[in-house]
């Protein structure tokens, strides 16, 4: 092994990474626009614009030159929009974007300094502030869409009324849910792209998915559910979207390979704990935010010792 620094590709800039993520998000955007039509388009435009404007304003307030060119605000805006229910009114997207940029990112010093994933900070804020507009009922009030997407979300239905839907529908994503989470297939395609491009680490998604498979599999066998429980938890909620696109945010996830495994394992456990034992049907957002909080600790624990010390 050559001595460090191991810089393979000097073109590995923030802008390139963000563009990769945008390309990776394309299949999901297409899927959600095809599925939710105007709802998805409206939410995407609102969040992206609001994120860009808030980034511009807040960076100005700090007396720095604007940093819109690195595309990170666009990525945050799109991820935020894809994590919202299509029926959420315009101000939900605007407030979530302002909180994401202001309190989630710029207040800590901008990109690279933030502790929590900005998009998830914004979503958590509106989730608690407007529980009625973001909760289970928000997903059932959309008119003008196919029957398949007008009912409860798969995880809500499974949790509160015990009804399951076909696994193929779950996988391809012809179900209801937040704009970007419905199609496990689209998330896998986009996710594999950013993992292969080394924009996202492979350890985090893999360990999250393995952990969730493990816990949901055991629950499935213990409750003799013959598989539908496991697949609902794998493909039904925001697991794929969160594992590939949110948890892998390089700023808020651990730096070391070992740390990434711990991070993914912790996220997976928390997701299943929240899904199984809390009042919420879905726990990806809170699980990732909680693990963001312990990321500095994981980094400290897993820092490799230099040769010759210890």
């Amino acid at each position, binding site marked *: 092994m050559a001595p460090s620094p191991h810089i393979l590709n000097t073109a590995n800039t923030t802008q390139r990474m963000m563009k990769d993520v945008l390309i990776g998000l394309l299949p999901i955007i297409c899927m959600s626009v095809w599925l939710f039509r105007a709802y998805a388009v409206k939410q995407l435009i609102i969040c992206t614009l609001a994120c860009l404007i808030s980034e511009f304003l807040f960076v100005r307030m700090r007396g720095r030159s604007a940093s819109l060119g690195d595309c990170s605000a666009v990525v945050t805006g799109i991820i935020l929009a894809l994590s919202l229910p299509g029926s959420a*009114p315009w*101000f939900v997207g605007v*407030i979530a974007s302002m909180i994401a940029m202001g*309190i989630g990112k710029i207040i800590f010093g901008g990109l690279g300094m933030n502790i929590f994933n900005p998009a998830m900070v914004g979503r958590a*804020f509106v989730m*608690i*502030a*407007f*529980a009625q*507009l973001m909760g289970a009922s928000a997903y059932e009030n959309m008119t003008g869409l196919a029957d398949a997407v007008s009912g409860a979300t798969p995880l809500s239905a499974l949790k509160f009324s015990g009804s399951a839907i076909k696994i193929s529908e779950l996988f391809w994503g012809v179900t209801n849910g937040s704009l970007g989470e419905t199609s496990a297939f689209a998330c896998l395609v986009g996710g594999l792209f950013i993992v292969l491009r080394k924009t996202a680490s492979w350890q985090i998604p893999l360990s999250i998915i393995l952990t969730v498979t493990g816990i949901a599999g055991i629950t499935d066998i213990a409750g003799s559910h013959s598989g539908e429980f496991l697949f609902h938890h794998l493909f039904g909620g925001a697991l794929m979207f969160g594992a590939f696109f949110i948890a892998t945010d390089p700023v808020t996830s651990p730096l070391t390979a070992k740390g990434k495994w711990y991070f993914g394992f912790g996220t997976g456990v928390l997701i299943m704990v929240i899904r199984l034992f809390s009042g919420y049907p879905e726990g990806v957002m809170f699980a990732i935010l909680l693990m963001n909080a312990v990321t500095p600790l994981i980094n400290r624990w897993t820092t490799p010792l230099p040769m010759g010390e210890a």
Partner: protein
Amino acid sequence: MADQPTAFERFVQGILPENPVYRQLLGLCPTLAVSNGMKPALTMACSVAFVLLCANVVTSLIRNLLKPHLRIVVFTLTIATFVTIADRFLAAYLFQMSKTLGPYIPLIIVNCLIICRCEVCASKQSVFTAASDALGQALGFGLALSSIATVREIFGTGMFFGIRLLPSAWPDWVIMVLPPGAFITLGLLLGLVNWIGIVKSRRSVND
């Protein structure tokens, strides 16, 4: 102790230059806990003002009897006496408010703002100075509490003092009346106060 501040200086300092919440970061527990509406916030501010004034006056009266190693105990007992009075008074005359505030009135005993004023001012200065110090600090505390409560109540419920202020189309930001809203509001207002301070000091340097 020649260069202790005068009574007037003590009074003025408490309001803004040494505001207990925004400058000294004291008494944050009630600041965060009861600032979700103007009514509980003002009740809390008045209770603190009463306890602070009485404790400061009594401490100042007995300041020559205080033994250094026992002073904190004496302060605490003095404060506890007046907190009990305030607590029972609220329970007797403002029962509903007493229920709303719950344990936070008894918790004034451990409000570090009061013990700080006993230690810093009342145990060293005359009764008049101690009383004006208490009034200034209490005013500052009330100002800080009501500024936070204003933001939280208007955003969180669209109301001010329980009176509808914003149109009913206003979507209540439930998070603002919950604990996270308290931390976010306090943090942002603290930043605002610091920013104003920086701008002011810059201006005075330039002048």
